[in-house]
């Protein structure tokens, strides 16, 4: 193979760039008497980096959990469009709120967690191969013996995983146990595992939390690479306003479970409701 270009596409969405990928419609989520989300509606466009911001407890992670199926909202719908060629049973859009998480993952929704959720005692490579698990189809016996088609399949999956390792520059850590790695690297491995699913939509829950300025810049670079090189649509939750305003195509702002603004970074920055809720009323610039 002469060219150094990647041979696998990491974006599995069949929706053309610029069209609607995800529609969140009037989603409300309650835990007993506590309202985590109230009538939240917005849309995500294929090919965008869409950030969700808001103060602590605003419901950002809950929203992500509704999309990935960990929470089931009491009201409202979340529609994922998969494009014409992907539609299982002839349909091209899927209602996610009633589906179990593994079915949503099969539809191509991948995520990383705010607190690292990796297998600390497995190597980076093994963790990333796990990201391929939903794509592996072979019998238990063939897998155990690592024989014939099972073996070939694993080699084929490894090729894709290696491209992700190359993209995220994880070569030096390939065979190291994840638990022994620095925090910043572990975050990168989490991003890598989500990418190995070949996502149609990538949900990143605070990928830069707890990082110093340099690590943040690196991570922002990787998120941009994933977006630009692999063409993956990203929903990003992040606290660092500089990062958010720098790399997002669109920003949605939550406050106490309600959507208070939605627009381009410049529009959101200028929105008085956002300035009051997020930055404090006095800091009008």
């Amino acid at each position, binding site marked *: 193979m*002469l*060219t*150094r*270009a990647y041979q696998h596409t990491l974006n599995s969405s069949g929706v053309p760039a610029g069209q609607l990928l995800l529609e969140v419609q009037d989603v409300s989520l309650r835990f007993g008497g506590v309202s985590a989300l109230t009538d939240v509606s917005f849309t995500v466009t294929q090919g965008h980096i869409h950030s969700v911001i808001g103060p602590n407890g605003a419901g950002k992670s809950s929203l992500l959990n509704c999309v990935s199926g960990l929470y089931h909202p009491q009201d409202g719908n979340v529609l994922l469009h998969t494009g014409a060629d992907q539609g299982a049973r002839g349909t091209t859009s899927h209602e996610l709120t009633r589906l179990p998480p593994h079915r949503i993952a099969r539809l191509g929704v991948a995520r990383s967690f705010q607190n690292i959720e990796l297998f600390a005692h497995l190597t980076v490579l093994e963790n990333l191969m796990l990201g391929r698990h939903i794509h592996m189809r072979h019998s238990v016996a063939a897998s155990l013996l690592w024989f014939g088609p099972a073996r070939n399949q694993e080699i084929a999956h490894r090729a894709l995983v290696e491209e992700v*390792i190359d*993209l995220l*520059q994880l070569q*030096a850590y*390939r065979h190291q146990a994840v638990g022994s790695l620095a925090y910043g690297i572990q975050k990168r491995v989490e991003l890598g595992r989500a990418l190995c699913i070949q996502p149609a939509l990538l949900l990143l829950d605070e990928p830069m939390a707890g990082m110093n300025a340099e690590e943040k810049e690196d991570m922002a670079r990787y998120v941009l690479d994933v977006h630009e*090189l692999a063409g993956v649509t990203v929903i990003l939750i992040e606290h660092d306003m500089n990062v958010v305003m720098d790399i997002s195509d669109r920003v949605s702002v939550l406050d106490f479970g309600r959507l208070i603004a939605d627009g381009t970074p410049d529009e959101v920055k200028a929105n008085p409701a956002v300035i009051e809720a997020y930055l404090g009323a006095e800091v009008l610039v």
Partner: protein
Amino acid sequence: MSTFPKLLATLATERPNEVALQEKRYGIWQPLTWSSYDARVRDFAHGLASLGVERGDVVAVLGDNRPEWLIAELAAQTLGAAVVGIFPTSLNEELRHILTLARVKVVVAEDQEQVDKLLRLRLETPAAAEPKAGDDAQGDDEAAAELLVETVIYYDPHGLESYTDPCLKEFTDVEALGRDLAALRPGWLDAERDKSGPDDIAIICTTSGTTSRPKLGELSHANLLAMAEHLTSVDPIGAKDRYVSFLPFAWIGEQMLAVACGLSRGLTVSFPEDALTQRSDLREIGPNVMFSPPRIWESMLSEVQVRIDEAGWLKRSVFGWAYNVGDKVAGRRGKGQGPGLGLALAHRVADVVGLHPVRDQLGLARIKRCYTGGAPLGPDVFRFFHAIGVNLKQIYGQTEICGIAVVHRDDAIAFNTVGSPIPGTELRITDNGEILLRSASVFRGYHRQPEVTAETVDAEGWLHTGDAGYLDEAGQLIVIDRAKDVLQTADGTRFSSAFIENKLKFSPYIEEAVTFFGDSAGGNGTGGAEHGGMTALVTLDPLTVGSWAEHEHLSYTTYSDLASKPEVHTLVAEEVDRANQDLPESIRVRRFVILHKQFDPDDDEITRTRKVRRSVINKRYADIITALGKGEPSVQVHSSVTYQDGTTVERTIDLRIFDLTSYAVPAGQGRRPVWSGRR
């Protein structure tokens, strides 16, 4: 006498299916056989020809070591063009200087980073760049010359998908273009290749330029092949030998082994996967031959020191015993004696339990010979490698003589010499102590700078090295320093600052040291007034000092914070005092300062090959140097730091000057062993 493309063609017919190059990609060593190497070179040569590269042109390559680097080099040479390698870390002015001086039309660049640099350079109007070039007071009219780059070929397309600049071409597209063209004119390329003679320029190497802007040394096929012939007649290299290429191809040392010896002896060259995996890839390959500048050997020793210090007492004491045995054997071998029976047996055991494992960890288990060159290496580092059973030898040479003229022989390695001339090389010392060299490998001259060439090579073909040196009783060459850097104290002791600096730098905690003599800034005074004597500017090795600080439960944030700790001052004071013990009274270091930052090539303080630029240091740190000379207790600095993206920041910092005149090592503390940072 042949040329590199002809050698490649021969190898491709004689050993078509053996591995010529291999690169680790996607976790696997991906081989390239001699025949496919040759085929890719031919395709790319046709492609280059279609982009207008002609005989006599210069093609620049800017990037890390990859097979494409060598393919581009050989392809250009097939067409009768030369290649100039540029260090991948080079920035704007340096890049422009090389590209304009060599009148480069086609650049082969690695990736987005390098392409961005080149595109930015093309956007700048020459008028905007001119005043800057004038500041350098070089007075050469080349500085104002126009940038002629027409085509930029990249081989790593990641991130470049959306670039639309018409000058950009992908490497594989150029190869495909060449393949189509080859079908149209069969035999043309063979004819072109055979038109080149051994005296044509093969490569242009930038000289390291510690004194001024880099000059471009033209080396012919004959120069390089003569060097390979002479070197391998002393130290045979065979087709089965392995070589790992991880130092920049722009450096003559890498061209020397990977290209000149590689093609004339047909050895396999391996490329590591990534800068961070170099060490583990080196260990996977286990090279038989290696040539690295001192910093690589020094960092290997630091690594051993750090890891031994982290090991438990059992491992420490086993290694300590094995090291002592190895050191004794190496010491006897140096004197030309064999070990006695008892020592030989002990050495056998020591090798199994202590020495081989360390060699294996460093990736040196298979090494037959390895070399250091480019700058002096501390005798103690030398001794360490010989003690653990690594046959490390000093090379003395310059870009102007293909990197090597003098080398240690296997049975005569004296740590303070650089060895004896390789066959076919004449050596002469002038009356004022300058080393002169003459051989078939003396370069053709500086590219488009005949007047500078005339100053360097005289009518009889002697290369004036500018180094001062002398021969010892055994006829081995001892290099003091650059002739103009050799100084004299008030009592008449002749010395060089590099000699003292190397003594200091042997400490695992000191990364770089610059010494000054007398109380005048610039350090070239012979005054030695009441406050005179040696002073030093020291930078720390963050890895070893950091691990030491952790061990001492000392918390720190950044490098400058670490450098300002009183404990670190005491640590360095001990190290300097240790170095002082080996120096004559008149040139002992009296005072030192730990600098608030490391030297950085982006700040022009050291070269890309990590040699300190004294003139820059003298100018930038004039205040500190004056304060050092006067013996003040501290000094304030305003520093401007250039970040990698080109922005600069100003800061004010207080630096403490440590006076050693009344310093004594606290009683009851022994000397630490070479291989450890602890007692």
